[in-house]
């Protein structure tokens, strides 16, 4: 187990090092959600109560910005993995005695770390815009974890509802459980597919 953790850690560090050396790749992931959050809140925020019956549109829109950023990071991770495969580096990793699963998990955890950093930035901006946060710092922590997990798994509707509840409604166990179940379910499904794909590539 410790070997699995060590190799996962090493591969996560490698992916983060790569991200640090190519900041332009992640600039778009940060810019797009921040830009659209500012524009949407500025354009629609004033009429949201009359038009949709939403009191705190800044809070309502925050999960969308968070997941938009996380989706960008997840997309970038897929591209990076493809580049590893095309360059032959993925095979070099496959030729080590590293557990196959750690190769994928290391990169995914690096993406979760990146998503966490971006989420902090987006939440700070939302708070600066005057967004409320019904569940306080604890809810904020749950929101960050949820977004980081999304960067790994990708599971939209239930997660966004769960996240939104933290900001605009307070602690709603049903919405949060559905969000968590979506992450776990899709995570288990995609991890299984990944493991099967790796198994079919090699022994």
């Amino acid at each position: 187990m410790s070997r699995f953790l060590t190799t996962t850690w090493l591969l996560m560090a490698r992916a983060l090092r790569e991200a640090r050396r190519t900041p332009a790749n992640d600039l778009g992931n940060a810019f797009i959600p921040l830009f659209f959050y500012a524009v949407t809140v500025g354009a629609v925020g004033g009429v949201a109560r009359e038009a949709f019956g939403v009191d705190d549109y800044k809070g309502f829109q925050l999960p969308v910005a968070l997941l938009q950023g996380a989706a960008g990071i997840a997309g970038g991770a897929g591209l990076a993995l493809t580049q590893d495969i095309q360059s032959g580096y993925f095979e070099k990793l496959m030729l080590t005695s590293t557990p196959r699963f750690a190769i994928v998990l290391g990169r995914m955890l690096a993406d979760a770390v990146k998503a966490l950093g971006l989420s902090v930035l987006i939440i700070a901006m939302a708070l600066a815009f005057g967004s409320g946060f019904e569940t306080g710092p604890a809810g904020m922590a749950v929101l960050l974890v949820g977004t980081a997990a999304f960067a790994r798994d990708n599971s939209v509707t239930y997660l966004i509802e769960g996240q939104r509840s933290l900001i605009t409604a307070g602690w709603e166990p049903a919405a949060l459980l559905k969000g968590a179940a979506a992450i776990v379910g899709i995570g288990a499904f995609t991890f299984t597919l990944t493991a099967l794909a790796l198994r079919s590539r090699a022994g």
Partner: protein
Amino acid sequence: MSAIVANGLAKHFPPDIRAVDGIDLDIPEGQVFGFLGQNGSGKTTTVRMLTTLLRPTAGTARVAGVDVLADPERVRKAVGVALQEVGLDELQTGREQLSLQSRLFGISPAETRRRVNHLLEIIALTDAADRPVKGYSGGMKRRLDLACALVHEPRVIFLDEPTTGLDPITRDQVWRYVEELNRDGVTFFLTTQYLEEADRLCHDIAIMDRGKIVAKGSPAALKSSTGSDAIPVSFATAAEATRADARIRRFEGIDTTAIAGREVVAYLKNGASAVAGIVLALNDEGLTVRELRLAQATLDDVFLRATGHHLEVRERPDGAAVPGGAA
């Protein structure tokens, strides 16, 4: 003890491509074994099966005493692999790349530092070690790739066309390093298209053609099996070459012949005494010889006999392809 054993090893791809069609290997420890063949002959597929990157369709294989299907992780620990395409992360530095590779094999940080410094010195990359790989030349990348295959000190090393595209100086460096490691008892499985490489490095070679091994043995034994001398004779057309082949076969002292396009090669024990007679005999047949040489039989001749085509082709100044190959 055998370092690599394969029995009936095969890899088929749908619908009907037999990339490797049931090959047998038994390579003793401490040997440099050469796998010769043209592109698409099945060399790389064999390497990929033996190194656990590809699951065989049929047959069995043991590398370093371990079954590649039963315990692939132990095989990976025992072997070093440098594939045909250099597989490096261009954003990492050379040192980071080697260090990560070492750590992924479970080697401690302190031992990793020692091995990485040592390897960087050997491959002459110490000065460039902390620069990103994307700035390296092709030769530097190849050397780093090779070092990645060595960092965990494997006892069996697979090199898939390790010197393709390298300049002669770097090629010679790689050869000398292979020889040095082999003196320490490391077994090499080397695929190549270069006959000079096979001749210089390999104790034994196998010639691969269309997924099958068509000849196997030491370079010296294989060359002597063709006769000690070779007389390649070129004609204007392939039809003339075919007629010439029929005539040369009847000539006294000829061991065998082979045809490749517009060229016939006669193999015999004492070429010098036969040249004049062959020219006269061909002249009597009304055949005009364009070019005739007397040479010692090479691995290319062995390859030609076994497969019906040359392994190496070089360009003449007039652009026509003529057989190449080293002695």
